[in-house]
């Protein structure tokens, strides 16, 4: 029956736990992009790290791997393949796995890859139902683009810009005849920013899409419903004079505002 010292025991247990956790955390390497990934335990990552180093050496082409971004469901890490300053391929070397995540990842990642190639920037839509993965993907993508830019001092590398024009025949001179992609200003709404990108060809809107829209919680559902309708209406009307989608008033208003600014830019 040794004497018990409750206070001493509490202090000791707390100190031991806190210092143990701090110690084990500090023993983990911090993400120093190239070296940390090479030292990582996942074989995929080691490969990515090596390729990334090669990509850096080639300066204008090759692959770049972004930072691993931790999300609530697991890490997301994006690898880009660029040629002549353009993103030709985007893929996720890490994405949430297990349980429901498998399904969500399988659905979302291909869409995000596609969107990256289309947008040539990290300004891509979140895939509805995969908000956290999309968010992590965009962050990792941005870090990959930053690295590519840093590696290739050449100005031709893809630079993210909200209102830059990135048409297929950009700079060819035949602006009126060729298709042209214009991104409107960001319109802030109560639920988040809305931003519209339109493709104009022969003075007509051939395609409209939202590059940003309210996400998270209920907004995923509302945006998923309203945005395709608004895109449809914009193409049909050829102007910003479109009806608001019922139940998505704020998003509709923001959409119209951004659409108008895109039309102004295309026209001017």
């Amino acid at each position, binding site marked *: 029956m040794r004497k018990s010292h409750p206070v001493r*025991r509490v202090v000791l247990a707390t100190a031991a736990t806190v210092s143990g956790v701090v110690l084990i955390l500090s023993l983990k390497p911090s993400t120093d992009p190239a070296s940390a990934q090479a030292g990582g335990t996942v074989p995929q990552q080691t490969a990515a790290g090596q390729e990334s180093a090669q990509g850096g050496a080639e300066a204008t082409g090759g692959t770049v791997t972004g930072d691993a971004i931790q999300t609530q469901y697991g890490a997301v890490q994006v690898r880009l393949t660029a040629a002549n300053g353009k993103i030709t391929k985007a893929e996720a070397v890490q994405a949430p796995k297990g*349980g429901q*995540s498998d399904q969500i990842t399988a659905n979302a990642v291909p869409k995000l890859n596609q969107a990256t190639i289309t947008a040539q920037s990290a300004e891509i839509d979140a895939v509805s139902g995969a908000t956290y993965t999309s968010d992590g993907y965009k962050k990792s993508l941005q870090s990959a683009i930053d690295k590519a830019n840093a590696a290739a001092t050449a100005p031709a590398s893809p630079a993210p810009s909200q209102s830059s024009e990135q048409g297929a025949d950009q700079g060819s001179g035949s602006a009126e005849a060729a298709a042209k992609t214009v991104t409107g200003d960001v319109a802030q709404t109560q639920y988040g920013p809305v931003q519209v990108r339109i493709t104009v060809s022969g003075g007509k809107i051939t395609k409209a899409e939202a590059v940003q829209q309210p996400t998270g919680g209920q907004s995923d559902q509302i945006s998923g419903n309203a945005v395709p309708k608004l895109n449809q209406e914009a193409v049909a009307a050829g102007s910003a004079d479109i009806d608001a989608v019922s139940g998505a008033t704020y998003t509709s208003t923001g959409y119209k505002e951004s659409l108008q600014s895109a039309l102004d830019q295309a026209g001017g």
Partner: protein
Amino acid sequence: MTTTLAGGRAARRQTMRRIRPRRSPATVLLLAVWAGAVGVLYLWWHNTPSVADDNSKILNAGRITGLLAGYLMALVVLQMARVPALERRVGSDRVARWHAMSGRYTLCLTLAHVVLIMWGYALQAGKGFGDIVQQTIDSINQLPDMGKAAIGTGLLFLIGLMSIGGVRRRIPYDTWYHVHLMTYAAVFLTFWHQLTTGNDFAVEPVAKTVWYALYGSVTALVIWYRIFTPIRLNLRHRMYVEAVIEETPGVVSVLIGGRKLHRMGAEAGQFFRWRFLAPGMRFSSHPYSLSAAPRPGMLRITVKAIGDHSERLRELVPGTKVWAEGPYGALTAQRRSRGKVLLVAGGVGITPMRALFETLPGAAGDITLLYRANSTQDLALWDELAAIADERGARLMYAVNSPDGERPDISADTLRRKLPDIDKHDAFLCGPPGFAQGVYDALRGAGVPARRIHHESFEM
């Protein structure tokens, strides 16, 4: 003279042949627990490539505390599964103290886990520590199994709150006990979010399997030892109250009849948890020690009326059915490592000592019982003890308050004076906490090493 001495030696050798001290498996079990904790930390280490910024440091600290809490939670439940190795080898009292201690620690880890993870998520979403409540609500709404986990965690904190010393003393034992039983539901509710949102389990199928195995085996042990074993025991022995005898004012013995009671495996020094199926008593069970060695047709418990339940025992009608769980407790002859034994009893702590006094193997003069009570009237079972002492040639001493209320002096010096070879003894000790602590210190002072002082104490 020489022949008697030789005879004494032969008898002693005979006794010693029957003494095989069994070591408590506590050390081995504690090592296994630590090894498991290291395994859990390795799981995190293996699945985490790097820890970059402050945000991921917070999140990963949350993951580590969460993993450890999940691991310990299973062990906290296991400690109360009434596994014989724990109850009879380590000792019910020690396991109960482990349970209380690890339970408190697990709740602290759980709290740290919740705060750290929600803070980390809030930072990830570009918010600060102040938005932690909103983040918690969002996470409960959006993540799988988090609603269940939130309810379970709330229950766990309620149970923890009710077990804090000051709170627990203020609520009736039965209320506390039944709230405490909800732990099973709470643990079940919190289990699922570990697998669905836990990074380590989502990525590693092996880890998932290990976790299922851990919780599955704990569940199996609980069902087996807390439900099936008592049912089998009671169907087999069909116990009932045979008689209630008043020993001294306020102390009653309950004689319990039944079938083949010597086959229950109970030893002197052990106790059962008793439930008397009489009106007002059937919903609570209480631990009382056997006050005599089990006989084929009869068990006996001796109880001092200090609480509601023990007060009611004297009104028990013969024939009342009895539901018992046990035997539990490690204060038995197995603990003994020497030929000579000193038993020390304080008040109603005499019950297990009385059983041991009767049954501990030993030659004349090997066994000594020191019985402390307030007055000679309070020396319950004294006549029996005197008879046993006569029969076995054992020594029986008592210490009571002097007529003017002065307490008897039980110190290292007095013990040494009464038993000059006290440092060659094993000491068994049972009594109220203050008394037990005093005697323990006196025994240590008289040169009895700690490993040979055996006691049972249900103080937390």
